[in-house]
């Protein structure tokens, strides 16, 4: 994964609540067996609406998306994160995210920024005509107008994002601990070993 410190540029001012994963990427795009190329199916139902932000040339290629509460609710499909990544989105700002989506986003190097609704409303306003900046180092979202919103982010996630770390590699390095756990459980709960069936 590419290390990421700052995401700067235009932001799609979507603003809607409960944008579910079927809206982010409809099920008929899930038949792919690779990760690339899903951007073309992203937000298909919204793109069918005249005047939608995704087809507005002002925001073409924007690296940031601003949405309402509960962004990414619904299915666990990581395709939603892949589709956003394929569109070039590197940060999503919303008052809340579904747990699964924010995990998937993180694993694909997309920053999910949780800010209070008032801050999101202000950013939606600014984003219509101006760029905004998400900075992981200072944990802030800033605008050209002195707005400065500080956000919380899990320190481990922040480190991984900023250093571009591979989580599987990190866990494989804990092999001895995993083996010790397996050995202990084989003694305590031997029936957990799956039967052939």
């Amino acid at each position, binding site marked *: 994964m590419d290390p990421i410190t700052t995401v700067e540029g235009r932001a799609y001012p979507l603003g809607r609540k409960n944008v579910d994963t079927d*809206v982010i990427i*409809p099920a*008929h795009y899930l038949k792919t067996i*690779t990760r690339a190329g899903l951007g073309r199916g992203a937000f298909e*139902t919204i793109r069918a609406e005249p005047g939608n932000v995704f087809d507005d040339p002002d925001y073409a290629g924007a690296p940031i998306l601003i949405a309402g509460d509960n962004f990414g609710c619904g*299915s666990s*499909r990581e395709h939603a994160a892949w589709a956003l990544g394929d569109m070039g989105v590197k940060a999503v700002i919303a008052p809340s995210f579904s747990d699964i989506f924010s995990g998937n986003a993180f694993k694909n190097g997309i920053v999910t920024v949780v800010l209070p609704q008032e801050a999101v409303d202000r950013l939606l306003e600014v984003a219509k005509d101006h760029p905004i900046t998400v900075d992981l180092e200072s944990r802030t979202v800033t605008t050209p107008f002195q707005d400065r919103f500080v956000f919380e982010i899990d320190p481990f996630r922040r480190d991984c994002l900023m250093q571009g770390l591979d989580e599987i590699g990190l866990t494989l390095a804990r092999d001895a601990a995993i083996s010790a756990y397996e050995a202990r459980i084989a003694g305590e709960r031997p029936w957990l070993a799956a039967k052939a069936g």
Partner: protein
Amino acid sequence: MNAPRTLYEKIWDAHVVERRDDGTCLIFIDRHLVHEVTSPQAFEGLRVAGRRVRRPDLTLAVPDHNLPTTPRVDAAGHRLPIADAESAQQLAALERNAPEFGIRYIDATAPEQGIVHVVGPEQGFSLPGATIVCGDSHTSCHGGLGALAFGIGTSEVEHVLATQTLLLSPSKTMEVRVDGTLGFGVSPKDVVLAIIGRIGAAGGTGHVIEYTGSVFRDMSVEGRLTVSNMSIEGGARAGLVAPDETTFAYLKGRPMAPAGQDWDAAVAWWRTLATDPGARYDKVVVLDAADIAPSLTWGTSPEDVVPITGVVPDPESFADPSKQEAARKSLAYMGLTPGTRMQDVAVENIFIGSCTNSRIEDLRAAAAVARGRRVASNVRQALIVPGSGLVKRQAEAEGLDRIFIEAGFQWREPGCSMCLAMNPDKVPSGERCASTSNRNFVGRQGPGARTHLLSPAMAAAAAVTGRLTDVRDLVGGSA
């Protein structure tokens, strides 16, 4: 003396491999279910990195989402090809990956094949107190057995394949207590719809729900699986029902469940898992069973719940302006006018299936309504899709297939089917479907499809009248 703990906390503690300073834990995963849609990129990742599957013995693969529900073999027993090239390719990828990585695989034509969340409990692969994951959000289903079960994304699938662990932060806990006795015609589906209607689609975010109270104690395992299945629709990543004698009776003798001395040891441990008296939940929600009616959804969020005796709500009636806006959009999409009686809404499609409601009890409930009746003439398709080959066989042994076929339903092969329309089973654009599945999102059952979520008995009632119907009016009895 240890502090009293909840069921969730006990399962969590029993699976901690390592605890980090920031509170996140490396959690061991006891059971990993794999299907064809969310796994190809995970196997691809392993292959690229030269990694193997750490515990193939704890992993079980079965295809379900893409499979057509029409016959899969011809008269001579030869497998029929899948017409859709992309679906065929996803299935082929799983068929290649499972043997390559040494994973047990239930073939598309095996009698045990079915929806991954029906197969796991049915085979006794899913067990109480276990950590269970699958690249599918409705993994929450297995919590009906008292397992900590949740959906994961494909990167996490790859992580579990490679390490048999996940790095997780503990969730908050929410108790949803429902005491009392359910009224006539009120099913587990109605209970979970009522819960989601109460807490909202984001109400459980960050929480694991434990369902407590007499309603769940008295409920069958099938019903508990239905309720826990839809925990994710209330925003919770997982749901739990404490394992008890009902759970043990359900699991005993299942092919992959422990047997003999192992069984006794397992039950002894499972009995220790129930939430201790005095343990605290972060949130508590209480519903009275007597207040729950046969229910259904009117909009495009699972929180849009109304009793069948109710009317389409007026968007202005919601306090929150963004909910008003969402309701206006929902009603436009659904083609509904505020104030319309739900029972006056005609339906053209019926879907009885999905991991929420495709187990044998669900089919029995639907058959009880369909028996001796006919699917209404305005209904264009009425599908019954059993959750697994074993459910299908059981239903056929009980003669349920004949009841459905005589009534004019189609009796199909197991799979996800019209729940998400990845296979050829779709609701045509602009048409309405009474569906026992779990999601009424825009386009979920096909582009432009209008979904009403309800119970199997209510879906059967809608099929025979051609409109949304109070099942209690058909089968008699009092509310």
